[in-house]
């Protein structure tokens, strides 16, 4: 049972992150020099031992002999190089991805160091010398949770991109354009800058969409009656029938308080949808929680005080319940060789899928109210930045195929999560802070999208890897998008001046994130998912993502992507010949060569920002479902080059697959042959 070539893909423990730094191939040999730009003095002073030899990395699932190698600490990553493998094998762990570091009791083999990552990577090292182990341990504690925001990776991350390109990257997503796509401003809704100095609400963006009928006094009045001033604003307008999804925080109603302006505000929202005599007010909390809030002067809307509202509770649990649920789920995932019953019981007891279903049910309720009942919906929870964000973004995704495209999904995250003040920094634990604020709220949203992908394999332009990549970067702090808690804080941190935006970087790698089965923008409109319990599956690709042995041994996605790139390549060749583009032999080639490096391609990004990007109309959609801006972004040369690259990647992956194929009987046969009982 030789340890064979299985899993050389584990190399990229950091899920592709290191590659983004330009040539992970160089490996740690070049770490010191190459990372020069990323090394901040603050980080360096935490590293007392940059290199430890004789470190073992245990495999969680097999009885395979542990590997032996060297562990490096850099300013940004922990890198483990397996010296015992014939092929060079590296495991990269970004410091920001580290959730917990534990020093386990000393064993004969050495001092075990157990690292749990926020992207659900678990690494179990055994370090020969206890002193080394302790030093690595204390370094990692400090490196993984910086105290000052300036120490976050994003502020030192330098992909050698020009200032202009960096700025253009930040302008890639413009929410105004999305509102335009919905037809706003129109007779009923307007974009107001009432919040430009954060007077109305300091966790909202400067520009918000409110009913035209709501004047300044109504807005200000309502803001005084809503928790943290988070007044009802528009999240999504369903153009077909004028029904809107709006969001806010809980009212400060206590047991009996009223607010005329708030009542006017809701009336204005209801009247902005003349087709419906009523509107829903949805409190996404369990009723008990909402009632308990009344004692603190908060609570929920009294149906008697608001005209023609239908009030409804949807019991999604709070951040603390969700955190504990994930904790239990991860314990199940980590159990060593569990029986089927252990696993299913653990899955049930974690409650995780129950919570996912609750979020999905709420999203479906909203989408149905808007589409079938033609009624507007106002959604809130307590502060309106966790459950509300989940539910509103999910409903938009169900209603509007645009949000199922690359661009649309980025807009959706920018709009419902980033702009509306989901506290990424606290929920993800970017900085050393209150652990009770951490909660997998965004993870749940991403999982809901994945569950939808399982039911509707042809409706999303992107694939599972895209979701995982976004999920990685929410925690990586490599890009500025998810830093801080709200727009104001990001301004104060100067992230738009000092950091890079994630989105152009993702668009660069679009080929590998593409869903080959996507049938185009117009093939499906609203989605009506099945929400019976059996339709929800455990997402092995997320929670056991780094346990490659558990995944299907042959990857359909890779194969189809390579089929596809082959096809586009042929088509490209054809169009190239037809067009004989004049700049073919021009200076572009050099740029194309450096395409793998971050940033070079985004010189084309201004093209993304034209209004037709956001047009929801079928017109700009080509037969293959790609939109005009796809074509604009990259010249044919770029495109082709990229294809070659991704093709190359595919081949490599295929080879890896093969390696896995006939590797030892791994999980199946581990310890199967034991003495007779």
């Amino acid at each position: 049972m030789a340890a064979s070539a299985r899993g050389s893909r584990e190399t990229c423990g950091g899920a592709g992150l290191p590659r983004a730094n330009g040539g992970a191939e160089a490996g740690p040999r070049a770490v010191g020099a190459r990372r020069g730009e990323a090394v901040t003095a603050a980080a360096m002073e935490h590293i007392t031992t940059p290199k430890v030899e004789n470190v073992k990395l245990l495999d969680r699932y097999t009885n395979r002999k542990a590997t032996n190698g060297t562990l490096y600490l850099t300013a940004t990553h922990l890198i483990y190089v397996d010296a015992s493998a014939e092929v060079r094998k590296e495991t990269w762990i970004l410091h920001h991805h580290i959730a917990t570091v534990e020093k386990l009791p000393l064993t004969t083999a050495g001092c075990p160091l157990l690292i749990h990552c926020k992207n659900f990577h678990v690494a179990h090292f055994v370090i020969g010398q206890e002193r080394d182990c302790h030093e690595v341990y204390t370094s990692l504690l400090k490196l993984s949770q910086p105290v000052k925001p300036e120490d976050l990776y994003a502020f030192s991350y330098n992909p050698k991109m020009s200032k202009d390109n960096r700025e253009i990257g930040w302008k890639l997503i413009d929410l105004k354009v999305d509102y335009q796509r919905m037809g706003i401003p129109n007779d009923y809704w307007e974009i107001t800058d009432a919040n430009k100095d954060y007077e109305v609400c300091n966790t909202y963006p400067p520009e918000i969409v409110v009913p035209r009928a709501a004047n300044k006094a109504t807005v200000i009045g309502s803001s005084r009656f809503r928790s943290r001033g988070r007044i009802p604003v528009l999240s999504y307008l369903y153009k077909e029938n004028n029904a809107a999804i709006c969001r806010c925080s809980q009212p400060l109603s206590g047991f009996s308080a009223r607010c005329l302006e708030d009542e006017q505000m809701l009336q204005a929202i209801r009247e902005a949808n003349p087709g419906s005599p009523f509107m829903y007010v949805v409190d996404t909390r369990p009723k008990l929680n909402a009632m308990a809030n009344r004692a603190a002067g908060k609570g929920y809307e009294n149906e008697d005080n608001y005209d023609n509202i239908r009030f409804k509770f949807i019991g999604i649990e709070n951040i603390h319940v969700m955190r504990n649920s994930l904790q239990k789920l991860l314990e199940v995932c980590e159990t060593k060789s569990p029986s089927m019953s252990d696993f299913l019981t653990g899955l049930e007891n974690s409650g995780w899928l129950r919570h996912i279903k609750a979020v999905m049910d709420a999203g479906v309720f909203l989408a149905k109210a808007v589409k079938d009942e033609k009624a507007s919906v106002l959604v809130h929870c307590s502060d309106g930045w966790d459950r509300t964000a989940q539910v509103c973004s999910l409903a938009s995704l169900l209603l509007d195929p645009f949000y199922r495209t690359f661009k649309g999904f980025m807009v959706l995250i920018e709009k419902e999560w980033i702009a509306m003040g989901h506290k990424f920094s606290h929920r993800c634990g970017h900085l050393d802070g209150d652990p009770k604020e951490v909660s997998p709220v965004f993870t749940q949203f991403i999982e809901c999208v994945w569950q939808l992908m399982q039911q509707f394999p042809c409706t999303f332009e992107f694939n599972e890897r895209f979701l995982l990549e976004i999920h990685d970067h929410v925690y990586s702090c490599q890009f500025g998008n998810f830093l801080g808690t709200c727009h104001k804080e990001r301004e104060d941190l100067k992230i738009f001046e000092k950091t890079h935006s994630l989105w152009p970087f993702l668009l660069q790698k679009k080929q590998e994130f593409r869903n080959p089965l996507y049938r185009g923008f117009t093939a499906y409109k609203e989605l009506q998912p099945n929400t019976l319990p059996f339709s929800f599956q455990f997402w092995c690709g997320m929670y056991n993502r780094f346990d490659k042995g558990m995944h299907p041994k042959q990857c359909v996605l890779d194969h189809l992507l390579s089929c596809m790139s082959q096809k586009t390549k042929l088509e490209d060749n054809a169009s190239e010949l037809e067009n004989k583009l004049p700049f073919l032999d021009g200076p572009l080639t050099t740029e194309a060569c450096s395409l793998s490096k971050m940033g070079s391609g985004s010189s084309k990004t201004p093209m993304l920002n034209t209004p037709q990007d956001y047009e929801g109309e079928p017109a700009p959609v080509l037969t293959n479902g790609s939109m005009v801006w796809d074509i604009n972004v990259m010249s044919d040369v770029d495109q082709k080059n990229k294809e070659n690259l991704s093709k190359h990647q595919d081949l490599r992956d295929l080879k890896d697959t093969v390696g896995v194929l006939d590797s030892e009987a791994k999980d199946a046969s581990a310890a199967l042959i034991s003495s007779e009982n």
Partner: protein
Amino acid sequence: MGAGAPGVLGPRPVAAPARREGGLGGRAVALQGFPLPRQPPRSSAGAAMEFAELIKTATVESVLLSGAGLPPVRGTLCITSHHLLLSSRPGGDGAPGSVELWLLIRNVDAVEKRVQNLGWYQPPRTNGSQRDTRLAGSSGTITLRCKDLKVLQLEIPGMEECLNVASSIEALSSVDSVMMLYPFFYRPPSLRLEAGWHLFPLERYYQQIAAQTSQWRLSSINRDFSACPTYPPAVIVPAAVDDEALRKAARFRQGGRFPVLSYYHRKNGTVMLRSSQPLTGPNRKRCREDELLLGTVLDEGERGFIIDTRSAQAAKQARMTGGGTEPKASYPRWKRLHRPLERGRPLQESFAKLVDACNDTALTMDRWLSRLESCRWLSHVKAALSTACLAAQCLDREEACVLVHGAEGTDTTLLVTALAQLILDPGCRTLAGFQGLLEREWIEAGHPFHLRCARSAYSHARLKQEAPLFLLFLDCVWQLSRQFPFSLEFGEQLLLTLFDNAYASSYGTFLGNNEKERCLCKVKESTHSLWAWLNEPGEKKKYLNPLYSHNALVIWPSVEPQSIQLWQGLFFRWIRSSEYLDEAWAEIQRLVENDDTSVEESAGNRQSQAPSDTAAQTENKR
């Protein structure tokens, strides 16, 4: 489908004498222009008379049919010897009615009836055209739960009618005589009767093995089923053991199932054998011939593994009833491994509980997961795959011979040997190879299909012999296909079709319990083979996996719980809509077909990456 011509329903009036006025006329209208899915039987008059006695009501008008996922439809219900038909009434424009239901009565697993005296009550679901006069006072609902897990409802006007229909269906569905079953009457015009029966001649398969090694020979000891009534006439045994010794060894094994070769692993020359338990009994009886037989399998100094599919304790207890297991002292070079696999009643109950949970749409997430766990079906899948991997590992990695048996050697034994071959041998993973594997390791090896598949998940009759071992096997194959989406030439559709046909079929392939029974019933002479139909070009297309590319390697599945999924395509076939998933497959098909060259390219790439298996690869290229 749809090849039949109208008016060929000759025998039916005999089988179904009209007892009610209007019944005959109604049928005549309904039968005009039937797009017949299959030609009905040319039954002998004698059989027809027997069926006629079972049919109390042959036709009922204005029956409302509803079932999961289909809009309710009203029409005329006909009961024939083997089928239940419902044809919608001709539309107002004089268009002929169409057949909405064509159900093999053998497929009915359970019949539930509910009658109500409605009196003044008019059913609310009528849509205008309701003009039935017999609705005078009562109606009834029959729920048909089918072996393929589909559930249908028939709303029948008239209580008496309803009861008659129900008892007719019950009687017809529980006809137990093999020769009365539909395959003996089914004569599709497009197939030849003898086609498909000799596609996979066992002798030739064994001869090929015998030709590759001098240690094995084809024996005709069982030509007349005298050595072992459940073995086929052809068996392959160690060359060093003569027929006389075999006969003695057979007497030492339950049901005469002496150790025979099941699979020869060409890569290293190891073999997998299967048998039933030895009859050691409480007195620890021994049999020199049996010991000799197993002894000659191993070369000097070699050791083999016996995989007993019962727990050590169960094997020990079997001694009390005359069975037992191979004691170390008598078989010193064989190492025994116990891997208990569920079978019999517990397995049947597991299946029923799972289907019950799947059909309960009112479950919360917690209840669903808890019932999924407590039915234990996925645990059985995991155990079966693990044990098959163990057998495969012994052969491929340990380079040791393996003997697999449980008690009778006709259930879990075959589950393990068939799965292990699928894991090891790329030849079994083609469409033809898989059919050959089923023929060899399930049908000819004597899995008692007639007993095991007599009832499915819904039957609450007192079950004795029923157990879904074949379904468990199909489920495991589905798990393999999910983990190795390129490695099986066939897709899910084939597995579903096999499941359906094992429980109720127009074809003779799964009839009877063993070759001896099939010979006695002249199954091969009087029925069509399922394989003949499946391999028709038009039909075959449906079963192929568009992603298939030959993979010469061993496919080791992961048996971690995270890697094993509930087979939704089977258990939720009639419950969830598969529209979007079907579209995805169509899209895959489209993508791959446009790209045939690159498939081959990457397939070639895959193969070239397996230097360790080049030998096996070239061997297997055919």
